[in-house]
């Protein structure tokens, strides 16, 4: 992780949802029973149960051995699915921002005692950025199974003409929570009126001759807004957290974009 990213990430932590989560033993309340102080339920005593959890008061009243069940404490795991299609590295700013968000998410997960996994969209787990060539397809679903009841974070620009809803639903299946960070290059988020240009699709051989004037840019912005709204709706339909992020330096990106949109919270 870049030092400036590390310094910026230290001030935040991943904003966890209110509902119970799954994960290994840790500080967060899980969905199952465990050994936290939070009472959850009773059940009949069976040999082998911890006698410290026997509700002696109830035994005195009912002459039945009941065992107190407490909420388990877990450390949430995070599967980070990274769109590694060429569009994510279309500029250095965008590529760096992707790495910053992913590295920061890993950092936040580790700080919470969880285990992060970085997974290439359409591929498998990767450990270092040197393994990522940004030549993947736009099939986001990893080839490896995602961890059950893990939190999942999708980082993509979602610049595809089809509805992202079905994919997001698939990605959120079996997850305890889904974060979707739609990360755009500054020019993609706010193109300039540059005049006549030939636009080349970075992922296909498509090309268009176009005059980028104010009117064309305004229409592009409207179409992009509709695309982002579709991604936001798709995320909301699976009770996930959506954030539209413009690539920039990590401190401003976390403070001005991820924090207001509920992806992170102050540490």
């Amino acid at each position, binding site marked *: 992780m870049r030092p400036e990213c590390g310094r910026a990430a230290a001030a935040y932590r991943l904003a966890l949802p209110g509902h119970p989560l799954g994960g290994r033993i840790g500080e967060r309340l899980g969905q199952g029973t465990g050994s936290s102080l939070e009472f959850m339920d009773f059940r009949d005593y069976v040999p082998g149960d911890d006698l410290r959890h026997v509700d002696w008061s109830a035994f005195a009243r009912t002459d039945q051995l009941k065992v107190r069940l407490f909420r388990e404490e877990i450390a949430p795991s995070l599967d980070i699915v990274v769109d590694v299609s060429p*569009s994510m590295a279309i500029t250095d700013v965008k590529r760096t921002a992707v790495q910053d968000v992913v590295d920061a998410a890993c950092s936040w997960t580790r700080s919470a005692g969880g285990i992060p996994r970085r997974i290439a969209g359409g591929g498998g787990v990767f450990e270092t950025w040197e393994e990522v060539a940004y030549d993947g397809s736009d099939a986001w679903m990893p080839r490896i199974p995602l961890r059950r009841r893990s939190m999942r974070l999708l980082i993509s620009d979602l610049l595809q003409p089809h509805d992202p809803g079905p994919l997001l639903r698939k990605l959120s299946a079996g997850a305890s929570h889904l974060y979707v960070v739609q990360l755009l*290059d500054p020019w993609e988020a706010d193109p300039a009126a540059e005049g006549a240009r030939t*636009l080349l699709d970075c992922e296909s051989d498509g090309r*268009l*001759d*176009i005059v980028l004037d104010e009117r*064309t840019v305004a229409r*592009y912005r409207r179409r992009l807004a509709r695309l982002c709204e579709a991604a936001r709706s798709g995320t909301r339909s699976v009770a996930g957290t959506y954030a539209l992020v413009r690539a920039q330096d990590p401190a401003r990106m976390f403070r001005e974009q991820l924090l207001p949109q509920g992806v992170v919270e102050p540490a």
Partner: protein
Amino acid sequence: MGFSSPIGLLAFLAVPAVLVLHLFRRRFRERSVAGLFLFAADALPADAGRTRARLLRTPSLWLELLAAVLFGLLLSGFHVGAAKAGVHLVVVLDDSASMGAADASGAVRDDALAYLERRLDALDEDARVTLVRTGRRPSLLAGPRATVTQARRALESWKPIKPVHDPASAWELGVDLAGSDGELLFLTDREDFDPPPRYRHLAFGRAIPNAAVVGARRVVRGEEERVFADLLAWGSGEVAATVHLEAVAGDAVREITRKDVVLRPRRALHVAWTVPAGDIPFRVRLSDDGLAADNTTTLLPEPARVVPVHVDVDEQTAAQLRIARVFAALPGVRVVDEVERARLRVTAGDPGIKAGVVTLRVAAAGGERDAWIGPFLLERGRMLAGEDGRPVLQGLTLEGVVWSAGRGELPGLPLVLASEQVLLAEESRAGGTQLHLNLDPARSNLAASPDWPILMSNIVEHVRGRLPGPVAVNVRVGEEIALRFAGTPEAASTHALLDPEGERHAARGWRYLSWAATRPGIHRLVQGEQDVARFAVNFVDAVESDLTRSTIVDVEPVEVPDVVAASAGPRGRDEARIFALLLLLAVVFDWWVLGRRR
């Protein structure tokens, strides 16, 4: 299957044109983007432009290529089925000068053209016409298989001016071009031709009295110049004419003198004038008569062609060979001291062969001598083969000549032999010549014989003929305009000949530049825009000037071809309609495709 209008095949150039247009599509500065689909609705409509780009196989490209192919097929008159060929009229035009004869009732050429115009009028629009001009090498005036319109346009430029020639090769070419069903026509002015039986032989000539200049020359004699002209007339009686001698300076003509003459039929009359020597072109002109082409002869002054000679023999030998007397007697010879300037060298040593130089080496071969008495064996091989023979041997007899020669061998081709002993040999290499004269002057009387000045004159003229410059400045129509050139091939290629009508003919060759003299008048040889030489081309041909054999005949062809086309319907029209419809569809569909992209 075929093309009724092959020139329309040029329309297929539209195919590469379409490819080029798509290759050089309009191209702006490029920007790589991730969400290209978000801009698609604002894309510019056309993908054409100037910068070469990758060829995109778009529907528009295929439609435009299809349209180009259909366009080519449509214009070239593509049709299926050979049986529906149209009328093919092959006309062989007598291109000899006598076709230009005229009298009060009109010109022979005009009568022939009027007939041909009527014949062309009778053809339908699908007919094809081939016009062949006679000549030593027949040529096409229109076609093969030109349209009627093209044939009419070509006929406007037809000016028959050739000297007498055999039209047989043109007849054969016409038969070949006509194929099995073409109609053949031979238009001339004479009856005494015997074309192949498929030809219809039409003559429009008239026996018109005519007088002509059949020869002219100018000879410099000191400060004066003599102009000679040979006049000849044809007809049933005496022909009264006036012959003019005129000075020509550019477009200005001034009459110097005139002479009224009475020409008896077929009796040559020689006329001569004495004028001051100068560089002015003279023109001998007869008064107007039946054939204008042979009434005028222009004579340019022959350029001085002095042969520089260097003599490198001792005084005794020079005296024995009478070198000084011989060269003093020969015209156009200058003895020079600098050997580098010489084109002819007379020497006793062996200087070797140098390009552009003829060396006469006078030395007995070897130490021992034999005396021979002429006549000797002269190299006449070419003369026996019908050629002129060795120029240096022309006129030599060598009878009674005592020739003392060495017994040694001489290099090169033997020209004069006594038994097996070579007396004179020629060695040519790399543009130079060395003549080896195996002679001991002290023991020979060759230099005292009449053959000696002839031999030396032959050698001088041989050298003169190889000097750079015009080979002849006064030539006849049908002969060759030629220039010996001493520069580089690159410099030679910058020469061109401007004919009297201003048409430019590029030079061919290197050391010997030549052009066919086809039009009478003054021709200018230019290098770039600078004049190098002038040539006068004159029509002089006594056979063509004789118009008494001209007559009017109409000989029907013996073999009439089975011209299917005469009754055949318009060919290729169904195909044309289909191509036109498909072309329209392709264009409309392309327009629709491009519209969708907008």
